[in-house]
């Protein structure tokens, strides 16, 4: 490693030797993973493999017991809290769609825009043309233009998933962590979501956690399979799904 270079790695997101345990249960066990800038990576793995916990670690919700977590090659994420990490440019979509249900779709996006997030800034906030144009654009991308004034709580499940992805877009982070984006979607919606993610990937780094193999296949990106808190296999979807151990883990043999 070059000492003179402040960037320890070229990776956008870099996890090395991460351990986390809850009351003796090893949720993450010597996990190492690197995401290159502009890459889209699909993470698969059975329940309890540590997928969501890994996202918790990256976004600062959970602090690892040991290990390195670097963002953009130089920023140590283990020392920062959620807000700071979000400000740096890591956005996250939750497993269960989490939108602000009692506010309108439009307001949801407005809240997500990466503008001044200080108390002063919001108290004396005035809308600008630029902001409303960006919101319009996002609304169009996520196909919710007609629903802009509806309460987010009244949206269908799939629409909520999209709204949350839209909020990520409005946030415009460098890295998007997307947890199960197509859970509960129809086939058509799933297909559209895959298209959406591919489109977003053009100028963002993305990490997708998903169970749906058809969807992962459709994304057509490098796949990492987690098991018991560490990486079991990595490669193209075909490589991974033909890996014996993966099959074993998935089928429980």
């Amino acid at each position, binding site marked *: 490693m070059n000492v003179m270079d402040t960037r320890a790695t070229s990776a956008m997101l870099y996890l090395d030797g991460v351990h986390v345990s809850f*009351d003796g249960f090893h949720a993450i066990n010597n996990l190492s993973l690197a995401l290159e800038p502009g890459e889209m990576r699909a993470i698969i793995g059975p329940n309890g493999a540590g997928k*969501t916990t890994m996202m918790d670690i990256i976004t600062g919700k959970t602090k690892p017991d040991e290990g390195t977590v670097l963002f953009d090659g130089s920023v140590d994420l283990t020392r920062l809290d959620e807000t700071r990490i979000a400000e740096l440019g890591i956005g996250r979509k939750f497993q269960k769609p989490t939108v602000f249900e009692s506010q309108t779709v439009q307001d949801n996006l407005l809240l997500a825009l990466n503008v001044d997030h200080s108390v002063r800034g919001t108290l004396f906030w005035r809308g600008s043309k630029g902001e409303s144009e960006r919101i319009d654009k996002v609304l169009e991308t996520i196909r919710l233009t007609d629903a802009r004034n509806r309460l987010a709580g009244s949206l269908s499940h799939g629409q909520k998933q999209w709204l949350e992805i839209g909020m990520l877009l409005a946030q415009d982070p460098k890295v998007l962590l997307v947890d199960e984006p197509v859970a509960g979607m129809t086939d058509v919606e799933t297909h559209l979501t895959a298209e959406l993610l591919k489109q977003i990937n053009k100028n963002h780094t993305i990490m997708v956690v998903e169970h749906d193999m058809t969807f992962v296949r459709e994304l057509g990106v490098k796949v990492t399979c987690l098991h018991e808190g560490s990486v079991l296999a990595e490669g193209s979807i075909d490589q991974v799904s033909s890996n014996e151990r993966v099959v074993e883990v998935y089928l429980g043999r």
Partner: protein
Amino acid sequence: MLLSCFALPALAGPFEDSVAKFANDEFSDTEAAVGEVASSGNPLASPIISALQDGRLSADPGSKKVFITRTDGKIVDAASGAAVDKLPDGAAAVRLNNRLRRTVEAALGGLTLLSPDPAKRLAAAQSVFKSHEENLLPTVESALAKESSKAIKQAFAEARAAIILFKSDASDSDKLDAVSVVKARGDQEALALLTGLGGDQPPLVAKAAASAVASIQSNLAMWSMVQNAWYGLSLGSVLLLAAIGLAITFGVMGVINMAHGEMVMLGAYTTFVVQEVIRTRYPALFDYSLLIAVPLAFLVAGAIGVLIERSIIRFLYGRPLETLLATWGLSLVLQQAVRTAFGPTNREVGNPSWMSGAFDLGQITITYNRLWILCFTLAVFAILLAMLRYTALGLEMRAVTQNRRMAASMGIATSRVDALTFGLGSGIAGIAGVALSQIDNVSPNLGQSYIIDSFMVVVFGGVGNLWGTLVGAFTLGIANKFLEPVAGAVLGKIAILVLIILFIQKRPRGLFALKGRTVEA
């Protein structure tokens, strides 16, 4: 005894006159009468004076006659010992005040030093130790020589030492011996005796006494730490008892039950009703009243708990803060209902004999009621823990709290489990009320004084964890009792509250919080 009774009238004269003084209803005359009767040597003296002490001595001011109501209910004339059919109409119990009571105790001490009853002898020795009447020395010495029981012998020796210490003409060496006997006793009464010696002692004795005082004091100071720890445990057990039901309703179910204190109150009132029935119908059962009250209180409070759950709380699941408001309203209603039914004043709940009094362990006093409450609390805790772990209801309860939908799909009647869980928590609060009725007021306000403390205990210990509640209660109890002598009761309590606030900052989910993402999800 009979013989002397018949012989008495012939002797008559001064003794009769002395006895007649009891009928004057003047404390000074009564005091004189006690002295004269006690020193008369008359065999009736001891029965008269013990009757006086127990309030069984009555006098008729008209005829100046004095009567003893014997413990078996028979009535005799105090002066003659002759049996009497019934008390005359004007007769009233001879009155005592505290000074007289002390005189009576001392007189009785002298009279019963040689009693055949060992318990009376022990009491007599102790009363002589306190009164150190000089003229009793010969009696004490002869009693000491005759005594066979080791414990009573010790008491006589101490009584003798006390008399010698205060006897002006005793020799220095006797007094020094006496000091060491008293020093060996080492308790607060010994300290009181030695510090009360006065300045006219020979220098050698004074010095020995001073060093004995110092040694007793340092010994007592050490014991006071132990005592604080015991008080802390006992306060902790009260806190635990009050909080344990809440640990179920709040900790396990997540229902913020502000009417929890009222469940405790209902338990206490159940005890009152049980005792009232026993008092009027079956007085012999009084000592068992608490045993009867415990299951009844559990049923009463539990049934009301189930009723509350079915009629109010079940509509509010998932809205914890609204439950708080509704149960607060409920607590007002319950309080006022009890106030209307039983009146606003305190109700008397008696202590059964096995819960009264205290015993000494080393130099600390342990009161039976506190000890029993501690045992009782631990027993309730153990039973509850076992119930949650080993019974079907316990299993269902845990299943429902961990994953309601899953439990429902596995065929558990979740709404029944909810009702029973809430009933269980309330029932335990009712049991707590039985115990608390022994140390606190039984009034409509009873519950309110425990509700905040209970919440603090549960939150401090960690919601959803019974062991946390246990540790939390005892920690807070002991901390409180060690702070109290230093800071005073009020500041101590404030300090505890501030500590809890700061502690919650450090561990936002209490002492024994579950970690992991499931908790926060």
